[in-house]
C-alpha cells in the first residue's frame, strides 16, 4: 500500500520588540535568570496586562505578509493549563478570534511553486524556562521567568505539505518572510523560532485524513525533518502491520533520534478558553492595515522572480541574493550606481558569501557600502587593479569598511601597465629559468603558465596579467 504524508506546521516566533507583551521588562536574551521580571510577568496577585502596541503591529504585519484576512474585531483569550514556567497558569492567547486567518504562503520546491494555506496567525505570550539540573538523582527543577511574557507570534498552517522538501521550504520561506518584515530575529539557537509538526498518513488518492500525530520538542529545522522521516516510517510500518494510528502527542528525542508518546487524545488538555477580561478588544480599521502594508518590503519570492526577469540572473544566483534582505538590498543599491547586474551578483553571491562563511562574519554588521563595491568594479574595468588584486582589496573592504581607493593606495596595489618595467622583469625571469624555457620550446604549454606566475609573483601580483602574457609570449617565441 502506498501512503501519502500529510503535514501541517505550527510555528512560534518571538517578536523583535524591546519590551515584553504586557509589561515594560526588557526582552534581551542571555541575561541573568529572574532579573528581567516584574510583578506583571511574574503573575503576582493584583497585576494587570497592558498590550504592547509594537507587538500588535508586528503580528499584524506578519499576518498581512502571509496574506491573511484581517477581521476588524479581534480579542484575546485565556488558555488555562498548569505548568511551573507559566506564571498565571493561563496563557494570554487568542482562540475565539485570531488576528489573521485564511492566509497562504507560496513556497518553491524543485523549481515549482506550491501554495501552503495558513489557518491563522495570532499573538500570545511566551512562557518562562524550566531547567533540569544535571546532577544525578536531583529531585527538583528550576525556573527562570526572564522569557515569560515575551511576545510570541503563532502561525498555524493547514496540513498542506506532502513531503519533507515542502516542509523544509515552508520553514525556510517563513523564516525569510519574518526576517524581511523584521518582526522577529528568528534565532533558532535562542529559541526565538520554533516549530511543531502534525503528521498523518493516508492512502494515496484518498481524501480522508488519517489520525493526526503531533510532534513536539523540535529544536532545529533539521530535527523537524528527521522527526517527520522517523514518524513517516513508524506510521507506515504500523499501518503495514494492520494497526491503527492513535491520535496522540509525541516528544522528539534528539539524541536517540526517535519519538515517544507524551499524551494520548483521551488525556488531551482541556484549556478552558474564555475572553481575557483584563484586556479590551482591538478594532483594526483599513487605515491601520494600509499603514502596516506600507512597511512591508518586497518579499523574497517576489524579489527573486523580479531579479530573474529584470536582470536575467540564474535561479541559483538569485536564491543566494534573496536569502538575506541585506544582500538583496546591497545588490540593488550597487546596480543603481553602476549597471552591471551579473558582476555585482557574482561579487555578492560568491565572494562576499565566501568571506562571510570563512571569517564567520555577521552579515548584518558588514561595513561595506554599495558605493564602495561599485568603485571596486570600476577600478577593475578601468584597469587600475587586476581582478586578482580586487579580491584582496574586497576582503579588506568587508572587514574594515575602507574605500577600495584608499586600500589600493595604502598598499600600493595599483596595476603596473608599464611595458618597459614589465619587460625588464620578464627578462630577469627568463634568464633565471632556463629549464622552463626549454620545456616550453619542447611544446610544454604549462611552462608558460609557470613563467607568467613567476612574473606576477615578482611584481606582487600588480603587473597587468594580460600584458605579461603577451610580452612573455613575444619574447620566447
Amino acid at each position: 500500500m502506498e501512503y501519502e504524508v500529510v503535514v501541517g506546521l505550527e510555528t512560534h516566533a518571538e517578536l523583535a520588540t524591546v519590551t515584553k507583551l504586557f509589561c515594560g521588562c526588557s526582552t534581551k536574551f542571555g541575561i541573568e535568570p529572574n532579573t528581567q521580571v516584574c510583578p506583571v510577568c511574574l503573575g503576582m496577585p493584583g497585576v494587570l496586562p497592558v498590550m504592547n502596541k509594537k507587538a500588535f503591529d508586528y503580528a499584524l504585519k506578519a499576518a498581512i505578509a502571509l496574506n491573511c484576512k484581517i477581521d476588524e474585531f479581534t480579542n484575546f483569550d485565556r488558555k488555562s493549563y498548569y505548568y511551573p514556567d507559566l506564571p498565571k497558569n493561563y496563557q494570554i492567547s487568542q482562540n475565539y478570534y485570531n488576528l489573521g486567518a485564511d492566509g497562504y504562503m507560496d513556497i518553491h520546491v524543485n523549481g515549482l511553486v506550491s501554495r501552503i494555506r495558513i489557518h491563522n496567525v495570532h499573538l500570545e505570550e511566551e512562557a518562562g524556562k524550566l531547567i533540569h539540573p544535571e546532577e544525578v538523582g536531583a529531585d527538583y527543577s528550576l525556573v527562570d521567568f526572564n522569557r515569560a511574557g515575551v511576545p510570541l507570534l503563532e502561525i498555524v498552517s493547514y496540513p498542506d505539505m506532502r513531503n519533507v522538501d515542502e516542509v523544509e521550504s515552508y520553514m525556510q520561506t517563513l523564516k525569510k518572510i519574518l526576517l524581511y518584515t523584521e518582526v522577529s530575529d528568528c534565532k533558532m539557537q535562542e529559541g526565538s523560532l520554533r516549530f511543531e509538526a502534525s503528521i498523518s498518513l493516508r492512502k494515496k488518492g484518498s481524501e480522508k485524513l488519517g489520525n493526526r500525530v503531533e510532534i513536539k520538542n523540535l529544536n532545529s529545522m533539521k530535527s523537524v525533518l528527521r522527526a517527520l522521516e522517523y514518524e513517516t516510517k513508524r506510521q507506515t510500518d504500523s499501518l503495514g502491520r494492520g494497526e491503527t494510528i492513535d491520535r496522540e502527542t509525541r516528544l522528539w528525542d534528539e539524541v536517540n533520534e526517535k519519538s515517544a508518546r507524551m499524551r494520548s487524545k483521551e488525556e488531551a488538555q482541556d484549556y478552558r478558553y474564555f475572553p481575557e477580561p483584563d484586556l479590551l478588544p482591538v478594532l483594526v480599521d483599513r487605515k491601520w492595515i494600509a499603514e502596516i502594508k506600507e512597511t512591508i518590503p518586497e518579499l523574497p519570492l517576489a524579489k527573486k522572480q523580479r531579479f530573474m526577469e529584470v536582470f536575467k540572473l540564474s535561479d541559483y544566483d538569485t536564491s543566494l541574493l534573496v536569502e538575506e534582505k541585506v544582500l538583496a538590498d546591497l545588490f540593488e543599491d550597487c546596480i543603481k550606481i553602476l549597471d552591471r547586474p551579473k558582476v555585482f551578483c557574482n561579487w555578492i553571491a560568491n565572494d562576499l558569501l565566501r568571506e562571510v562563511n570563512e571569517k564567520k562574519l555577521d552579515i548584518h554588521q558588514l561595513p561595506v557600502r554599495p558605493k564602495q563595491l561599485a568603485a571596486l568594479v570600476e577600478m577593475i574595468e578601468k584597469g587600475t587593479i587586476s581582478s586578482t588584486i580586487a579580491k584582496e582589496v574586497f576582503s579588506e573592504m568587508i572587514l574594515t569598511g575602507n574605500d577600495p581607493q584608499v586600500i589600493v593606495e595604502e598598499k600600493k596595489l595599483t596595476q603596473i601597465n608599464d611595458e618597459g618595467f614589465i619587460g625588464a622583469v620578464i627578462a630577469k625571469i627568463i634568464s633565471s629559468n632556463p629549464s622552463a624555457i626549454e620545456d616550453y620550446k619542447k611544446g610544454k604549454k604549462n611552462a608558460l603558465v609557470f613563467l607568467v606566475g613567476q612574473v606576477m609573483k615578482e611584481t606582487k601580483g600588480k603587473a597587468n596579467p594580460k600584458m605579461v602574457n603577451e610580452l612573455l609570449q613575444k619574447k620566447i617565441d
Partner: protein
Amino acid sequence: MKIKKKDIEYVANLSRIELSEIEKETFVHQLNDILSYIEKLNRLNTETVKPMSCAIDVTNIFREDIVEPSISLEDTQLNAPAIKGVFFKVPKVIE
C-alpha cells in the same frame, strides 16, 4: 444536567484541587443545587444576543514599547517558597 462524582473528580483535577471522599459528596450536592438554579437561563432565547464580556465599551488600549526597570532579585524572591540561587525551585518536572 446532573453532576456526578466523576464530573467532580474531573473538575477537581482541572482545578488542581485534591478532594476527600466526603468533600466530593458535599460538592456533588452543592454544585447540583447551584447548577439547577442556573438552569433558569435556558428559559431565555439568546440566539441573536451578542455575548458581553466587558462592562465598558472601549477598544484599542495599548502601551508603548519602552523599557521600564524590572524589580530587584530580592523583591522577586521575597515571597518565594523555595529558591536555589537565582532560580525558583520546584519539585522535579518530568515532560
